[in-house]
């Protein structure tokens, strides 16, 4: 007979993916997301319900054809099998600091990739967006930063986590992995857990598990959603009148030639002002974006063979016209037991994605700058192509060409990726297994760009100045793991697991780019360079690196009470200097399941108590290949005008580095896992300290020695922190209403403990200081604006260099010598949050469920380049000069003696100490998502002939709860949307703006998204 039913937890939540088996047979079914199952069984049979996180339960059928079963969740999910490095382990036996995040939690936030879903959900994992442009990723750090560096790319390479998908290291874009294919992930945080990844483990490890087939009837499931997104807010710019006044003020307060300005209103602008024109360019460009996601999958199989197939489509259009990200994915897994000894399997994940970003991420930068005193359209209704005509910036082409001349602008990247893992496992003898994992990853990226003349992206006026480029990147890597496992239990109390590994990893990356100018017609785009007028120029890169590793691990458990893990790994890397290529990473972990002790049996309110601790060394070898070899920079020169004088040219820019070796991080962690009050409150607390030494430090060299910088193993840092996570079932009413809460709270304190030499306490040119966080703001301290009365009182005269005048930025003269110079710089703050946290509240009643995710980062600074100016490409080149429009700020005039922003000055494109204006409080508390779902009742489902159907409404980034940055009107979102761009602190021309930080730039503003979606199974 057919039996249908539903499995729910004690809290009334559906239990998905549980196995419902007929006892004594191989007949089995799996529950869907709604906890529903359907199985054929004799009426006198017994069903066995099992799953991770629940206590197995047997139920006699007794002739019923509808059986709803409530199961008990296991004590703190102790029986849950979780993924650890190179294997799995019961949660009960884990000694390291490992956090599991399940599929359901991830799905509470619809997002293009798993990193975005993870934001604010796990303690110790800090994720910052780096933009709202479709297809942009995010910056992720586990337990803070360890590496002293100033560039974003090296900070990501050195401090970012290792991603492992189904056991195989995963490089490249996380966007290549559809989040719908992910069933869960584990975060390995402390060194006793990550040391097993040796030289790649110091930044933490994210172990991602993708969906595989399960024995039972084939289940077809569909997940889909559609959403609309719009900007959270426009940048607050000056309107026409304010702009006109601002230009006038810039002339009035021109310090070099008072009363004059090279940037006064043009005749056209004066006319527009008189006519009351005030154009809001942002409004004309920003549009609603749409997100669509469809995922269809089938899985099932027999005891011997399981399969899983899936296909997905994701499409996200941006808030800038014609920007979009599109992804097609196809996935297949097969697991087959050839016989009782041999098992093989394959997992192949394939994605094809297109990213189109005409105008790029920085379109708002241009929208903000453009004069509001120009009509977007001419009287005859056609586009006003050159709205700034007559001014110094007359060559600006209307941003509306992004809409009207879309076919003349191409900025497309196409990525193709196939990520495959194959395994074979042989049972050699009882307890002894050999497993071969082979990972084959191939990715190819082709970019095509074209900028036709008289467009927003190419202001040139002639077709001969059109430009096109194509680039091709090919990357592959292979990973071969030979693993030997031995499991043995002696006298029922001594459980021993041994693991041995030999691993080879090789990465290859090759890229070429070609450019041409003078494409004869826009429709050709980048399709045929031979048609172009100009010569094709090109460039290429090639890198290869290899890693050779050996690892051994022993797990020992005594009577489920005392746990010991010991690992040792040896890694050899090609990127380091010969003689320094190998390094050993030891680690051990101890655990004590206190609740297993006799003396705990009386404390019934404590369901679980586990104390664990560990120590280990993990490392980082992410030096770019060939750093040890030295380098000539190539250029070319023409002696005279004839071809006979053309020579290739070289200069020595990097000297060889024969001693480059390993960076390593040692870390200890003490943690406590607990569950009390009938498992209604569960949680973990971890404290840790980590020390990093021999940091791969780009050392700036005195330029008089010929080379600008080199990488050396120098410097030490340390970090320590606290992580707390708590889950509680607050209400579990008899009418079915439940309310549960997940809270996490964590902070990390990082600091530099040594620079290049023990005696070096500060490296001012890079802004590195012993005892301070890894990147700090080192600059003059703005104390206000020089006021007219200061000048009257003679205070301004006290500053002899540079001479100060009312309306200019006043900074603190630290040493009181009357001169503001490099000696007056001081540490003004850093980018390390005082604390971070997340709060998820879930409510369920009858078929309804509601989740609300809130997260916070508090007490750190952000860099806001557009509130500064340095006259160069960084910052807002003409901030407060009056040349262009800008973000509206409260600036000084004689009638407005503010201390916020200085008087505009048409005489300079770099205000004295202008960089001090760009450091702002970046604290925020935000609502990340609100998700309201409704699970259709069984009766309806039956009529629809589906197993389960949940429909939901979701709001992502619905509102900001607290942000001083937004409150003060400086921008729509304090969280950041790009890297770098900050101007160097005034007075230090060296690269000391901490560009490793995500900064708030005039890039595409943050978006708010509303979606409606369905999860369907049949």
């Amino acid at each position, binding site marked *: 007979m057919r039996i249908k039913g539903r499995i729910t937890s004690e809290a009334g939540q559906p239990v998905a993916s549980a196995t419902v088996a007929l006892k004594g047979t191989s007949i089995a079914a799996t529950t869907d997301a709604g906890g529903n199952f359907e199985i054929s069984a004799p009426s006198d049979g017994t069903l066995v319900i099992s799953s991770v996180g629940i206590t197995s339960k047997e139920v006699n059928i007794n002739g019923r054809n509808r059986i709803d079963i409530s199961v008990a969740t296991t004590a703190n999910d102790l029986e849950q099998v979780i993924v650890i490095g190179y294997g799995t382990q019961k949660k009960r036996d884990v000694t390291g600091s490992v956090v599991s995040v399940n599929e359901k939690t991830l799905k509470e936030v619809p997002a293009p990739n798993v990193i975005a879903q993870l934001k604010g959900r796990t303690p110790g994992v800090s994720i910052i967006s780096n933009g709202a442009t479709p297809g942009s990723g995010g910056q992720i750090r586990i337990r803070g930063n360890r590496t002293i560096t100033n560039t974003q790319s090296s900070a990501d390479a050195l401090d970012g986590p290792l991603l492992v998908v189904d056991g195989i290291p995963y490089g490249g874009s996380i966007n290549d992995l559809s989040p719908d294919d992910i069933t869960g992930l584990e975060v390995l945080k402390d060194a006793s857990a990550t040391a097993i990844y040796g030289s790649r483990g110091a930044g933490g490890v994210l172990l991602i598990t993708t969906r595989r087939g399960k024995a039972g009837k084939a289940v077809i499931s569909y997940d889909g959603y559609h959403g609309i997104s719009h900007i959270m807010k426009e940048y607050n710019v000056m309107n026409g009148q304010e702009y006109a006044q601002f230009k006038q003020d810039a002339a009035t307060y021109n310090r070099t030639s008072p009363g004059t300005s090279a940037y006064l209103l043009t005749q056209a602008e004066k006319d527009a002002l008189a006519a009351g024109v005030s154009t809001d360019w942002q409004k004309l460009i920003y549009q609603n974006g749409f997100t669509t996601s469809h995922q269809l999958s089938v899985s099932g199989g027999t005891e011997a063979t399981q399969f899983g197939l899936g296909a997905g489509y994701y499409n996200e259009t941006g808030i800038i016209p014609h920007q979009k990200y599109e992804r097609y994915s196809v996935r297949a897994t097969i697991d087959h037991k050839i016989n009782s000894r041999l098992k093989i399997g394959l997992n192949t994940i394939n994605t094809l994605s297109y990213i189109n970003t005409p105008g790029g991420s920085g379109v708002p930068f241009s929208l903000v700058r453009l004069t509001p005193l120009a009509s977007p359209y001419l009287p005859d209704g056609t586009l006003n192509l050159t709205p700034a005509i007559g001014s*110094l910036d007359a060559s600006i082409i209307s941003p509306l060409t992004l809409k009207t001349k879309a076919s003349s602008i191409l900025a497309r990247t196409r990525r193709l990726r196939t990520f495959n893992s194959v395994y074979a496992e042989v049972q050699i003898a009882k307890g002894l297994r050999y497993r071969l994992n082979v990972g084959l990853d191939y990715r190819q990226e082709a970019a095509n760009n074209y900028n036709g003349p008289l467009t927003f992206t190419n202001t040139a006026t002639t077709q001969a100045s059109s430009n096109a480029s194509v680039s091709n990147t090919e990357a592959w890597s292979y990973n071969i793991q030979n693993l030997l496992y031995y499991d043995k239990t002696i006298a029922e109390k001594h459980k021993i697991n041994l693991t041995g590994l030999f691993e080879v990893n090789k990465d290859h990356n090759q890229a070429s780019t070609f450019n041409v*100018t003078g494409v004869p017609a826009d429709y050709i785009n980048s399709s045929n360079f031979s048609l172009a007028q100009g010569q094709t120029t090109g460039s290429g890169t090639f890198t290869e690196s290899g890693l050779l590793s050996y690892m051994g691990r022993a797990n020992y458990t005594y009577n489920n009470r005392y746990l010991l893990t010991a690992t040792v790994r040896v890694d050899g890397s090609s990127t380091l200097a010969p003689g320094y290529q190998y390094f050993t990473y030891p680690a051990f972990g101890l655990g004590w399941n206190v609740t297993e002790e006799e003396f705990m049996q009386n404390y019934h309110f404590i369901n679980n108590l586990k104390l664990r601790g560990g120590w280990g060394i993990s490392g980082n070898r992410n030096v770019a290949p060939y750093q040890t070899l030295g380098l000539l920079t190539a250029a*070319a020169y023409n002696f005279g005008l004839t071809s006979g004088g053309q020579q290739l040219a070289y200069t020595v820019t990097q000297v060889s580095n024969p001693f480059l070796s390993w960076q390593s991080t040692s870390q200890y962690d003490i943690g406590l896992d607990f569950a009390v009050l009938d498992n209604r409150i569960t949680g973990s607390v971890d404290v840790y300290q980590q020390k990093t030494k021999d940091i791969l430090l780009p050392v700036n060299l005195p*330029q008089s020695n010929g080379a600008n910088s080199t990488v050396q193993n120098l410097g030490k840092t340390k970090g320590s922190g606290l992580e707390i996570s708590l889950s509680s079932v607050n209400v579990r009413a008899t009418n079915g209403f439940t309310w549960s809460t997940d809270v996490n709270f964590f902070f990390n304190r990082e600091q530099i403990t040594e620079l290049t030499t023990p005696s070096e306490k500060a490296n001012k040119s890079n802004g590195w200081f012993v005892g301070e966080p890894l990147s700090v703001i080192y600059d003059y301290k703005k104390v206000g604006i020089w006021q007219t009365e200061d000048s009257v009182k003679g205070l301004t005269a006290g500053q002899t260099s540079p001479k100060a005048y009312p309306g200019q930025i006043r900074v603190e003269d630290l040493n009181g010598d009357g001169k503001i110079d490099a000696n007056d710089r001081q540490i003004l703050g850093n980018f390390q949050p005082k604390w971070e946290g997340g709060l998820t509240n879930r409510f369920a009643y009858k078929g309804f469920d509601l989740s609300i995710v809130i997260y916070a980062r508090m007490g750190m600074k952000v860099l806001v380049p557009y509130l500064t100016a340095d006259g160069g490409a960084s910052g807002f080149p003409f901030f407060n000069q009056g040349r262009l429009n800008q973000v509206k700020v409260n600036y000084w005039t004689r009638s407005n003696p503010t201390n916020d922003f200085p008087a505009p000055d048409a005489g300079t494109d770099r205000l004295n100490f202008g960089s001090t204006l760009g450091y702002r409080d970046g604290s925020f508390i935000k609502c990340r998502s609100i998700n309201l779902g409704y699970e259709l009742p069984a009766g309806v489902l039956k009529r629809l002939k589906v197993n389960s159907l949940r429909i939901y409404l979701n709001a992502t980034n619905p509102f900001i709860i607290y942000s001083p940055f937004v409150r003060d009107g400086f921008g729509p979102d304090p969280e950041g949307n790009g890297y770098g761009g900050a101007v160097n602190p005034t007075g230090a021309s060296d690269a000391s703006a901490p560009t490793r930080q995500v900064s708030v730039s005039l890039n595409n503003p943050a978006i708010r998204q509303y979606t409606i979606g369905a999860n369907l199974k049949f």
Partner: protein
Amino acid sequence: MRYMNLYKKTGCLLLAAVILVCNSCKKVLEEHPESSILPSFLATPAGVLGGIAGVYNDIRSQWGTEGFSAEMVAGTDEHLSGASASGIQLYTYNGLNSSNFGSAWGTAFQDINTINGVLEYGQAIDSLTLAPATKRVYMAQAKFLRAFWYFYLVQTWGDVPLHTSFISVATKSASRTPAAQVYDQIIKDLNEAIVDLPNTPTSPFLGKAATKPTALYLLAKVYLTRGWLNNTTADFTQAYNIASSIITNKATYGLDLWQDYGDAFNPANDYGKETMFVSDHSIDPKYGLYNNVSGVTPGPGGGASGGAAQNLTPWFYIWNYPSNSGINSYKDKTTGALKNMGASDMIRDAANGRPYTRTRPNTDVLKSGPHTGKRYLLDEAFADRTNDSRYSNTFQTVWISNTAVTNSATADSNKRGISYSMTVGVDTAIWLPDFEVPGAPQFNGTTPFKGIIIPPSLWTNSYFPAVKKFMDPSRGANFNDPSTRPVVIYRFSDVYMIAAEAAFKAGDLTNAAAMLNVVRQRAAYRKTNTPAQNAAAVAAMTITPSDVTLDFILDERTREFFGEWQRWHDLVRTKSLVRRVKEWNPEAGPNIQDFHTLRPIPQTEIDRVTEGPAFTQNNGY
């Protein structure tokens, strides 16, 4: 049985895989870069030649670029800041410090290390691989270039680190070598270079790369400079003798003055007889680094703004003629300043250049000091604009209408009371006379002027005569692109000027006057004059020994070399910087102090020396 078989087969396959992997183990840890060039390449002939070309390419990244050009001329008696000046500290000395000066410091030392590598590796190449004669020329080029950079360094910063061997492993210590030793090394390098450099440019160093007379010129100037530094007559005599020898052998070297001063700046003559040493540019996107802005395809039409290795020279001295020249501009009664009004007759084009408005000639009327009431440009340097052709050959004062404008009698502020149309290519849109014109800007006297007249009383940092010597009309429609003319670093007339200054300092006023007269008499020539007029001008320009004073020589250098990357070093060499700036420059005069005769060592250099003794800053900074 069937299963066992499969089991064995699979086992064998797995074993094979393991063995295969092990064989490639060692190879996994080897590095084989394919897309970069390593320092060992300097040990090949192509590497040696490439290293020399690399240094020339770096010289191109300074001379002609914006920041460096300003460093070489700003803050002197000749130049004031334009309305869009960047790096205002350079012009005023107010706030000039170790953090906003010294773009060439790193480049210079990178080049010196490259040269040291070239010399070390190159010297070791065997004679079969590199012919000895060729090698000698290569080594001579390298030595010239090392002297070239050290001379720049020692003039700019005084004591600087002296390196004569290749640094192949990073070090974090550095110290300054006394200038005297640096001068000794420069003189040694130049003397060695002179032996092997050819008389005229020879392949592969074509165009106007270093030759024997270039090295001799530099040597003469080095002696002259060291002579001033130590007040040694022997050095002045050396300088005079070397300069004289170049003049004597000018035919051998293919060098001479053009008859017309203006011809020296005719683009057709860029590689002509008067040009001694240049940094090259060309339209070729690869070798000419035509448009080296990251993210922009190299090639014409990039509309480049800034960027390495670009010759932007033509633009610095151009005021914003397309925007600030409204046809009905008038003199504001209250402020006395020119008020921009109406449409302009001018649009930006290649002939008139891209207006950067960075730097302007010093035309301000002095309100105090010994020259009260005077303008440096008109009343001192170019006081004689009748006989001396150099004012009209240096400055653009007339802009011919290049866009049709029709002015209505009733247009706002049209005081002429008439309606009329401008004729493109015929009518004068803007005229900056070097004398006062009554009725300006809309009338010449009482006659209505179709365009506008901006006499000296209306000159400001937004209105000033533009410098036309460097203009590049070949830009065509791509008038926003950088110039492809070479930047002329040494010009033959300076040989006479060096000789004159050396003779003056050696007490030989007769020869000093003789040398100056060569330059002055040439400057008297105008193609448009009759022979009789030219002869009269020559007579008027000729000076006597008693006319020769230091200030006269310095004024003469302004007339001859205005804007040619020399002024700051000229004033420092002649110990006249502080005095002349205080006398003539109203922007910088109030701020300049004695210590400003040396530039601040870049703060990065000081901060980065973390081993050994600290790197010292120049006094005053």
